[in-house]
């Protein structure tokens, strides 16, 4: 450990591993450390032994759930949008060669006590039980308007200016009911609250198009998922980094972020060794996690909480046509909340659990002092729950950009149901670390697979 590095990365969560991989490919000398003896940090997938160690260390691992090694239970529930930004990074960096993906079988939305498939085309809108006859016609017109929109052709704009008019104006123009707005804004545009309605419609338009084009790509849902769990994603980027010279140390205690008299980063101390580097990148848990560190400095602050319930089921979720996997969005308005409740379910089809077991994670942003109660509308949709692991996780945001002290801290994984914000975070940290350079994805050259 007496070498000097360009960058030390702390924590092997997805954000950190993507950055580590991209920086190594860019020629930087990277040392990547994690205090755990497994990859993934907060975005790991755990087997039963690891899950029990984390949530119920005082209890033995049950024997009625099948083999321990068949399990890879995600800690953060997210799906990959087929045409989204993470897919682009996966393809450009060629880490797809380490991974296999399957579709998520269905995308559902909760309306008036029932769940239904999210329609994504005008044809599906016409057949959807979500809307009455007249509403279907209006929704059909709305979808046609979106599909036909061309920036260069004002004839397709029908008097709407996406950059100026709010989404409210667009909804009103097509006369869509509040319930329809709920599933469009929350199950297609994937907003967690209703703030988007008063903002210019362009962002919502882009997100709906992302949803529909992702849906069209493989057919069943707009989402894909890596076999063996989301924890494969950080592992694959860690391998990318290692292949480009990155050094990996798991199970390594990080005791101190060493700074100089000006507060600038010097190195990382582990036991009585200190490794030096020009910069450090890491997740909030290495920087105090909301507590004062290093002479009273507050490096990260709490910015809300997420409550998540990992539920073990012995049956598919009722009302999903026995889907082997599904996303269900419960729009906030439908259950009198400010934030959506979101369910992500995967099963043995994705090699994350034993046969005939289903893992559903119900999550939402905490609004009260009884977070588990807030999940009730989601839990109620699951039928009998065999077992449940509930956690409340603070979301941390760094207090400084890192440009002045070379300490670059990533944000916690948010409550969104997909990875788009993770990629935004990667792009943002990249820009900060490189002194303002935008992230341009380069194709990986030669290397593996060549002879």
């Amino acid at each position: 450990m007496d070498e000097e590095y360009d960058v030390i990365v702390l924590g092997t969560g997805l954000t950190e591993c993507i950055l580590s991989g991209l920086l190594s490919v860019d020629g930087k000398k990277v040392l990547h450390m994690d205090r755990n003896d497994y990859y993934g940090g907060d975005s790991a997938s755990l087997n039963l032994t690891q899950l029990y160690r984390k949530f119920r260390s005082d209890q033995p691992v049950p024997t009625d759930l099948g083999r321990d090694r068949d399990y890879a239970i995600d800690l953060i529930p997210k799906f990959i949008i087929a045409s989204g930004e993470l897919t682009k990074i996966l393809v450009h960096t060629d880490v797809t060669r380490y991974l296999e993906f399957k579709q998520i079988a269905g995308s559902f939305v909760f309306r008036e006590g029932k769940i239904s498939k999210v329609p994504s085309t005008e044809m599906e809108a016409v057949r959807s039980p979500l809307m009455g006859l007249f509403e279907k016609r209006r929704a059909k017109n709305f979808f046609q308007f979106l599909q036909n929109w061309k920036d260069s052709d004002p004839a397709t704009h029908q008097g709407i200016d996406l950059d100026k008019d709010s989404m409210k104006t667009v909804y009103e123009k097509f006369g869509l009911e509040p319930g329809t707005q709920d599933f469009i804004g929350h199950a297609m545009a994937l907003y967690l609250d209703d703030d988007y309605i008063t903002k210019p419609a362009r962002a919502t338009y882009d997100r709906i198009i992302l949803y529909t084009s992702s849906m069209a790509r493989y057919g069943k849902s707009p989402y894909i998922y890596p076999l063996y769990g989301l924890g494969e994603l950080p592992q694959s980027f860690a391998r990318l980094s290692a292949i480009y010279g990155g050094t990996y140390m798991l199970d390594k205690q990080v005791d101190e972020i060493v700074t100089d008299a000006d507060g600038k980063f010097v190195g990382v101390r582990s036991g009585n060794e200190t490794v030096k580097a020009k910069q450090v990148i890491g997740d909030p848990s290495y920087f105090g996690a909301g507590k004062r560190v290093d002479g009273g400095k507050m490096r990260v602050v709490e910015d809300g909480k997420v409550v998540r319930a990992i539920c073990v089921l012995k049956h598919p979720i009722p009302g999903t046509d026995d889907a082997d996997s599904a996303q269900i969005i419960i729009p906030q308005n439908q259950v009198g909340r400010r934030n959506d409740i979101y369910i992500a379910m995967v099963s043995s089809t994705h090699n994350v659990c034993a046969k005939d077991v289903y893992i559903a994670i119900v999550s939402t942003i905490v609004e009260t002092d009884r977070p588990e109660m807030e999940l009730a509308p989601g839990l109620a949709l699951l039928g009998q729950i065999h077992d449940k692991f509930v956690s409340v996780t603070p979301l941390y945001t760094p207090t400084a950009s890192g440009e002045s002290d070379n300490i670059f801290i990533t944000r916690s994984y948010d409550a969104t149901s997909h990875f788009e914000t993770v990629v935004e975070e990667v792009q943002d940290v990249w820009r900060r670390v490189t002194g303002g350079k935008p992230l341009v994805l380069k194709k990986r050259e030669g290397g593996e697979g060549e002879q």
Partner: protein
Amino acid sequence: MADAAASADKSIQVKLVLLGEAAVGKSSVVLRFVSNEFQANKEPTIGAAFLTQKCRLEDRVLRYEIWDTAGQERFHSLAPMYYRNAQAAVVVYDVTKAASLDKAKSWVKELQRQANPHIVIALAGNKVDLVNNAAASSSSTTEETSEDEPDDATATPAELAQAASGDGLRAVARDEAQAYATEAGLLFFETSAKTGEGIVELFTEIAKKIPIEHILASTRGGGANRPGGAASGSNAQGNVNLDANNQTPKNACNC
């Protein structure tokens, strides 16, 4: 991604992983097998870590997809993804370093615990050229032929005594490693990436022992144990190929 490879030439794709302590010559063993080359002072593995090579048997062609550790083994940080779905593993130790066999044994244990239960594991005692040379030059009683045919006789008590006293000499008796391999159900070879000794034999014997029928069956089923890990999305049921509509297939066949 080599989508076409498996079906086009009817070769059967086999994921093979390398394991072993740092600097025992894992990459060199593969380089010898794949390109028939040897680099004397090879840098620790950087850049290329995913090589392919065909192996022809009488009735079948295997296409090895060989994964190198990319140095992640150095601080015990290999990801489970590494040996996931591997059908074969070569666990390498250095015949001049006794501790490297202990490390090899712990890797074998790890594989037997974590990897595919049908995995074929081979133990390779590498750098046997150092022992052969040393034996030939320093001992008048050892015949020249021992370089070509290292057999049990090479691990004489005299040599073991030498190993204890000098650098670069045998520190792991062939008998000892063979006995361990037999007990643990492993293939065993002493190899030299430098001279090529034992290398082709190593990979050929692995190929003979691979349960092809099992691989084909699980491929047809599109199930969990599909060989080759990530190689293609076309043959397993319901898998999606992210690269498919992104671009025209690049270097579709690497062989």
